[in-house]
């Protein structure tokens, strides 16, 4: 720590930081554009100028850029003096010379960093009298809008897109003041993290197209702190509503998980909430096999009668439903009748995942991932299965550059210098997958192996590490990986369930176990299947009713069973059950087959707890009260329990307490967020901004007499403008705002250090902290077929709910199968042919793409709702003779369609 003097006040500052970070951290309102906490400084925009004085006598000083100024003991700075503030005002004026008169028709307006900074510096009138420069725009896909006129050439977009996210199709073009940020030609931005450009761009060059379709200013949004349900990572999102519709999803900073960035699935995948596939009301199947609407009371009465009369009830939970809903179901049907709804492979990997969490291995958070310096990825398509993790892995590949810079005495925030010094030097990353991976460009070695081979290599690696030093493995790859892992400061093993192969997960655990004994810094990351897989795996001892198991009543909560069992098993299940009751928010094949349907609320409308892949319990809140009869699943189950005189709770907090008491591993869930009694300064936490507009007019077309705001007895939040926002604990804070900082960049006001943890603690509570070591697991003897059917996850297709969002649907690929030439000729198919996968009566045809970068004897087929059951059983592959290719060749992510 060094002492510096800022405007006459002495400040303790960390020497590894730059002056801008120090000043922002101590609450100074200093404007900046090109600096970003995660991308470091380049000193391009000249906006953060301050005056540095040589000594106490030096009154004049010299102007320095605070983002490029290291902290030195005794340095003296003036931030507010006239030279500095005048310089900053003139810089903004220069940046604004060509900025169009667009704010009213700009999606960024109201949360625009450029607006904030312009107001902060005090610039108002344009004194430049000449013409404004203009640029043509480009089509950048269904997610991002482009309006190049507004650019102030801070270079943040390309630095983010190329350097941080590893994209290659967005660049700076042209020269001098004609610099242009875009693609070489119109087309969809390829990177899976392109959506972050919306937040990275300080003005409105890159805007959210899905928001623009039903645009609402930030001040008019009612938001809630939610947890993304797109994958198992549990990224924190701020979900926002207006006029009873989900309007957008924005990043919500979490110091351990998502930090400043989200993936495109998370950011644009929430629109399924507005989809026409939502179930609006209770329904009962009548004698004509049609659904008839029923009132809430009738439906609850009918179903409770069914429950009372039933001999045996089966309850099937869901990994995409909240912990509360699953627990309420378990309470209603009894522990012995509760099934998790996971298929065998999911259940087995989830149990392995839990074993890892219950051991001393632990699961690394994404911030820890970014700190690791040697990575082995064992059969996990991170980018498409747990996307945000891929962005963190990409950062850890830069750790070689950071350690070089550290040795050379270059501060890590000095982005250009660090990159220049390192050139192409990367930390070792080994990727073992059956098909091309989006992280291949940062890999030391990208090896294409079939799932079985990956598992075998993993076990061999674990054995090699565990073996005494002098025994060299005969497998060159294993030896290479062993050397890298053994010499690393902090090695990381990445695996997961994307290949639906339990052995791979076992192998990765073994590698971690072996390595942990040698290097206690060893980290493991497992990507799970869905947002709550670990929660249901903890709650349930059984996962799917066994074939032939019969019951009088089956209650399914937010689960499309057809995703988790074969069509035969599904019809078998239905045949053995007299009544099927489904509680779900969106239509599915299970809903269509049920006798009663109760409409559930989505994550955007209800409260619930999720347990992410590192065992962190986080509470998610709804932004708005669901319409009509729609209610959270746990509320339906509590109503049903009350109606059939079973022990029930009135409040979600009681349910949580009961669950925490009943399940030993889940004791921490209560502490994940404040309960409904929370008050700060006597107030709840507001969902609406303090400048929410139109309250006396938005419902006036229906009735001029304004209804009372709906109450929220279940949570610490309120559907109101009144409440605390800035001082709210991070786990319930609905949106980020600070005076003068309307954009998400105001987050620096709420961090304990720039880019660090939130000052009121990162949301959530880590469960399962046990320090017992894990014993190596034994591989199961596998006798596979010659040809493997390998699931290929896709960021826009594989998740059940986000794939129903309109924009995501536009970007999703048609079913594809990737084969290498040899496998293709064995199967007698060629590029563009149809490959038919048959399992029982169920078959799907994939369009074939030949790619040399695929392991031998692997048919890599898109995993989505339709194809999911194929991967549970053995399927026959053959050429589909009758199939004709659809119009658009729209196969894999990098070839995403361009309109």
């Amino acid at each position, binding site marked *: 720590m060094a002492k510096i003097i800022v405007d006459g006040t002495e400040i303790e500052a960390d020497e590894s930081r730059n002056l801008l970070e120090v000043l922002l951290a101590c609450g100074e309102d200093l404007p900046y554009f090109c600096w970003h906490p995660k991308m470091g400084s380049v000193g391009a925009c000249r906006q953060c100028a301050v005056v540095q004085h040589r000594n106490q006598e030096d009154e004049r000083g010299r102007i320095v850029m605070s983002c490029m100024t290291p902290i030195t003991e005794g340095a003296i700075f003036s931030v507010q003096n006239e030279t500095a503030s005048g310089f900053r005002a003139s810089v903004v004026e220069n940046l604004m010379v060509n900025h*169009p*008169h*667009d*704010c*009213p*028709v*700009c999606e960024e*307006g*109201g949360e625009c960093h450029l607006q904030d900074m312009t107001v902060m510096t005090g610039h108002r009138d344009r004194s430049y009298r000449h*013409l*404004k*420069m*203009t*640029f*043509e*725009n480009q089509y950048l896909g269904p997610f991002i809008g482009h*309006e190049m*006129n*507004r650019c102030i050439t801070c270079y943040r977009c390309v630095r983010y897109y190329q350097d941080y996210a590893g994209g290659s199709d967005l660049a700076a*073009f*042209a*020269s*001098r003041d*004609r610099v*242009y940020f875009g693609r070489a030609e119109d087309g969809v931005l390829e990177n899976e993290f392109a959506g972050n450009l919306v937040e990275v761009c300080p003005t409105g060059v890159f805007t959210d197209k899905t928001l*623009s379709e*039903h*645009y*609402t*200013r930030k*001040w*008019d949004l009612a938001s809630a702190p939610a947890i993304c349900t797109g994958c198992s990572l549990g990224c924190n999102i701020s979900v926002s509503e207006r*006029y009873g519709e989900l309007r957008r999803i924005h990043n919500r900073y979490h110091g351990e998980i998502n930090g400043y960035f989200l993936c495109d699935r998370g950011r644009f995948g929430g629109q399924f909430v507005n989809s026409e596939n939502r179930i609006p009301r209770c329904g009962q199947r009548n004698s004509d096999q049609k659904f008839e609407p029923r009132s809430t009371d009738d439906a609850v009465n009918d179903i409770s009668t069914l429950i009372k009369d039933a001999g045996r009830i089966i309850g099937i939970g869901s990994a995409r439903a909240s912990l509360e809903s699953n627990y309420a179901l378990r309470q209603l049907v009894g522990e012995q009748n509760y099934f998790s709804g996971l298929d065998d492979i999911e259940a087995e990997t989830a149990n392995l995942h839990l074993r890892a969490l219950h051991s001393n291995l632990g699961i690394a958070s994404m911030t820890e991932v970014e700190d690791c310096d040697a990575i082995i990825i064992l059969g996990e398509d991170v980018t498409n299965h747990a996307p945000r993790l891929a962005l963190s892995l990409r950062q850890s590949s830069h750790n070689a550059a950071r350690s070089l810079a550290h040795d050379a005495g270059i501060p890590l925030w000095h982005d250009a210098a660090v990159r220049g010094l390192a050139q192409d030097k990367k930390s070792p990353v080994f990727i073992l997958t059956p098909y091309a991976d989006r992280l291949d460009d940062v890999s030391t070695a990208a090896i294409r192996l079939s799932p079985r081979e990956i598992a075998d290599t993993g076990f061999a690696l674990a054995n090699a590490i565990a073996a005494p030093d002098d025994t060299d493995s005969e497998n060159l790859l294993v030896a290479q990986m062993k050397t890298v892992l053994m010499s690393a400061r902090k090695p990381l093993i990445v695996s997961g369930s994307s290949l639906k192969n339990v052995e791979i997960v076992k192998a990765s655990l073994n590698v971690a176990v072996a390595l942990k004994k040698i290097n206690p810094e060893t980290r493991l990351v497992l990507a799970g299947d869905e947002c709550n897989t670990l929660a249901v795996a903890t709650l349930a001892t059984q996962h799917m009713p066994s074939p032939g198991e019969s019951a009088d009543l089956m209650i399914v909560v937010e689960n499309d069973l057809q995703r988790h069992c074969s069509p035969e098993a599904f019809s078998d299940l239905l045949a053995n059950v007299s009544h099927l009751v489904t509680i779900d928010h969106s239509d599915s094949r299970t809903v269509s087959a049920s006798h009663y349907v109760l409409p559930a609320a989505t994550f955007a409308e209800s409260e619930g707890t999720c347990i992410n892949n590192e065992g962190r319990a986080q509470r998610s809140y709804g932004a708005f009260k669901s319409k009509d009869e729609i209610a959270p699943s746990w509320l339906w189950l509590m109503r049903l329990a009350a109606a059939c005189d079973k022990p029930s709770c009135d409040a979600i907090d009681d349910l949580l307490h009961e669950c925490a008491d009943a399940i030993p591993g889940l004791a921490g869930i209560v502490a994940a967020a404040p309960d409904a009694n929370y008050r700060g300064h006597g107030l709840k936490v507001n969902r609406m901004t303090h*400048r*929410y*507009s*139109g*309250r*006396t*007019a*938005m419902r*006036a*077309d229906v*009735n*001029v*007499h304004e209804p009372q705001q709906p109450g929220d007895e279940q949570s610490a939040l309120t559907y109101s403008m009144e409440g605390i926002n800035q001082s709210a604990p991070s786990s319930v804070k609905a949106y980020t705002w600070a005076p003068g900082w309307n954009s998400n960049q105001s987050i620096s006001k709420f961090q304990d250090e720039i880019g660090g943890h939130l000052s009121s603690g990162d949301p959530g509570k880590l469960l399962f902290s046990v320090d017992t070591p894990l014993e190596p697991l034994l591989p199961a003897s596998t006798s596979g077929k010659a040809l493997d059917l390998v699931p290929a996850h896709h960021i826009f297709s594989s998740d059940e709910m986000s794939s129903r969002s309109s924009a995501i649907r536009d970007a999703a690929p048609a079913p594809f199968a990737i084969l290498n030439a040899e496998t293709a000729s064995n199967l007698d198919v060629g590029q563009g042919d149809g490959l038919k996968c048959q399992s029982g009566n169920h078959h799907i045809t994939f369009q074939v793409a030949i790619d040399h970068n695929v392991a031998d004897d692997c048919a890599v087929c898109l995993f989505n709702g339709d194809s999911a059951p194929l991967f549970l059983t053995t399927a026959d592959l053959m050429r589909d003779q009758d199939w004709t290719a659809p119009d658009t060749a729209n196969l894999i992510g990098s070839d995403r369609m361009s309109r």
Partner: protein
Amino acid sequence: MFSAIISQLRTLWQILLHTFSGYETVQYPEEKPYLAPRYRGRIVLTRDPDGVERCVACNLCAVACPVDCIALQKTEDEDGRWYPEFFRINFSRCIMCGFCEEACPTYSIQLTPDFEMCEYDRQNMVYEKEHLLIDGPGKYPGYNFYRVAGKAIGGKAKGEAENESPPVDIRSLLP
């Protein structure tokens, strides 16, 4: 003390003198007072000189409104022009303060010298866009927001607005 009493008495005397001055008010509704064009009465939405809706649904009027009686939703036509899908003013809440007019960046929302809008049913005080939109440009006849904004719309490509140069040829290597 003495001067204070004198002051009070002087006040009394001066008020008494008002016995002989005439009325400032008029006998409304038989007589109507003159209302200046900038009088703050019933709110209208105007059209630009091309006859197209001026409102770009920027929401600034709504946020400026102290009684929150304006609600609207942005949508876009095929030309890329922003306009309100609906625009609703609840006049039973409106206090005719004129903040919306001051906030409007396109001179779209304007207050008029009409204040006689009594209704027996409050519901009739809710005005939708079709009730608010007038056919002319109101007080600012020449102004057309899209002629000065940088956003391209149908009929006005990039670089064709006032004070704009034609789009940059980014492939040029000339200095």
